[in-house]
């Protein structure tokens, strides 16, 4: 089952939405980028507890998908989850404080980078278990279906996660039950240090076919393409069409985790490859398009970038100034 609309987006020369939306989406991508770069630097400077997996290069996916979601819709995310958190409306300062391990963090410092969640905004959370979010999203989608108020659930997962059997289980059950579930696979070319093709056979989107689940493969570095595909997918899921699998092709511009070259005994990709892929950086592409179509000048966008950068710096400063969790509460929150 292939969706039909939006096949023309590749040919779409002019941006498809108005100036305000253009800039809002651009700003969101930039926010994610700046947060991630700040965290990457903080990690290198040993300011962060624990590892961080950054979303740099994949921003168009979270932003393009989440723009279609209501606050009450659910998303489940991955170990690389900051971008999804921010795109779904999670608070920047609360995210950053969490990654710095502070009491003011969204999870009071209990969760950290791999567990940022905000239930008040439908963010079921990042997840340290590869493919762990699929079943959670399916459960939330079942709840949404029972409620009957049009909510949907979205599960973000990686190409590596696509090899966990629970993907097949999710495709099968969600198809049978017609769950309002969007499965978003971000194929960024790697599962940790393994290039996709060495551990993943075939095209991931096609795994939907035997289950009769709708699917699309889309350029995940093109915000408009993502946005259009997501618009369709959301309409499909919200409209009772059942699940749909979107595979977004993208590229992880930074390491699997920061500091990885400090412990890996060999490289798994060349610098040249990374540099080459940088030309398809979704933010760069979008910026160039905005300027080319005269939606904004380079100076406008530089200003915006400065604004965003300030927000991120403030978030970092606030996090560093925030108190650590009180150790007398170390065992709190196991049970309601």
């Amino acid at each position, binding site marked *: 089952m292939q969706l039909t609309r939006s096949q023309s987006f590749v040919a779409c020369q002019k941006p498809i939405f108005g100036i305000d939306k253009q800039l809002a989406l651009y700003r969101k991508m930039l926010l994610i980028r700046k947060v991630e770069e700040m965290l990457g630097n903080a990690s290198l400077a040993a300011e962060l507890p624990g590892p961080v997996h950054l979303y740099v290069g994949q921003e168009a996916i979270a932003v393009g998908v989440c723009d279609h979601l209501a606050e009450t819709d659910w998303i489940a995310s991955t170990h690389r989850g900051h971008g999804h958190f921010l795109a779904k409306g999670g608070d920047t300062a609360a995210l950053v404080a969490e990654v710095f391990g502070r009491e003011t963090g969204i999870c*009071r410092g*209990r969760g950290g980078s791999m*567990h940022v*969640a905000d*239930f008040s905004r439908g963010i079921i*959370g990042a997840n340290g278990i590869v493919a762990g979010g699929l079943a959670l999203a399916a*459960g939330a989608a*079942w709840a949404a279906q029972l409620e009957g108020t049009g909510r949907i659930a979205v599960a973000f997962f990686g190409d590596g996660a696509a090899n966990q059997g629970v993907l097949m289980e999710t495709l099968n059950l969600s198809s*049978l039950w017609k769950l309002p579930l969007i499965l978003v696979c971000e194929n960024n070319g790697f599962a940790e240090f393994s290039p996709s093709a060495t551990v993943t056979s075939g095209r991931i989107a096609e795994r939907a076919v035997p289950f009769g689940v709708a699917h699309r493969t889309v350029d995940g570095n093109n915000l408009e393409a993502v946005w259009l595909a997501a618009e369709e997918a959301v309409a499909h899921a919200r409209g009772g069409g059942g699940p749909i699998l979107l595979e977004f092709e993208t590229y992880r511009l930074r390491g699997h985790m920061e500091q990885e070259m400090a412990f890996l005994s060999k490289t798994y990709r060349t610098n040249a490859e990374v540099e080459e892929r940088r030309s398809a950086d979704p933010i760069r592409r979008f910026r160039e398009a905005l300027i080319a179509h005269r939606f904004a000048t380079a100076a406008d966008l530089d200003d915006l970038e400065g604004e965003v950068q300030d927000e991120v710096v403030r978030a970092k400063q606030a996090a560093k100034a925030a108190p650590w969790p009180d150790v007398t509460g170390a065992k709190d929150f*196991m049970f309601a």
Partner: protein
Amino acid sequence: MSRRRMVQAIQEALAEEMERDARVLVFGEDVEASMFGETAGLSERFGASRVRNTPISEALLSGMAVGAAAAGYRPVCHLMYGNFIYTGFDAIANQAAKFRYMTGGQVKLPLVYMGVIGGGKATAAQHSDCIYPALMNLGGLKVVVASDPGDAKGLLKAAIRDDNPVVFLQAAGRSREQYPVPDDEDYVLPLGQAAVKREGRDLTIVAIGSMVKQALLAAHELASQGIEAEVIDPRTLFPLDEDAILRSVSRTGRLVIADESHNTCGAASYISAIAGERAFAALKAPVCRVTVGDVAMPFSPPLEDALRPGKAEIVRAALGLVEANAASPRRQAMAGGEMLS
């Protein structure tokens, strides 16, 4: 009070709670046809959207329960045999047991996993594990093992009403026996509270699940020899009602633990540790654990019978304690045999 079999009591608990709260859901493999009978008739009564047959996909089901609970429902996920809990263990151990903590208390997870445990039916190694020690050790799940229909009903109702993940287990071998069950629709037994199934002054027998009946039979036989055993059923294994056990042991000074789970890191070893540490001065003899040992459950009934503890082993253990104690000089107890810490 009317007499019910275990499955009937469980079925009633499910039906009553589904009736009471439209957010209670039941799902799992063949919950419509109902392998054991506890979910029989529910789909007819509450509709196929609240009582759903699923594919054989435990890894998904256990995680869906977390997702549905986080989204505000109260799912009961029937995983059939305890051993299939292993198949769905990832989401149970990595999500359900940690989810509230990891999110800094943002979310409630009112969900129940159900399964049947233990031997006695010649279902062999892959259908007989007493899986609860692994679940207790996770630290983030309440674990209930019901030993009779009345308790099963009251505990399951409490489990469904609880805002935390609960694993509700029942012993495989006991499904056909009839027991009195209160008729009250609000018969809810608090989780975390042990039951004194028989009072006695000479020794304490803590028995879990299928072992409770054996312990009561053993107590009966011991009584004929003039030994009065107190039989305690913890009912909830996590959190464990340590105080109830310690209260009894501090009076009797002797403890036998009958547990069908494996020996190493089993429930009995935890209870023994607690008693050994916190009733140190009161103990007149070493705690004695009667367990199945560290062995897979065999198929052949004579082997299965030989491994599963029963009345005889419990009686032997009890007599051993009483005699050991008579034979050796009684240790000087600390003031009044009070518990430590």
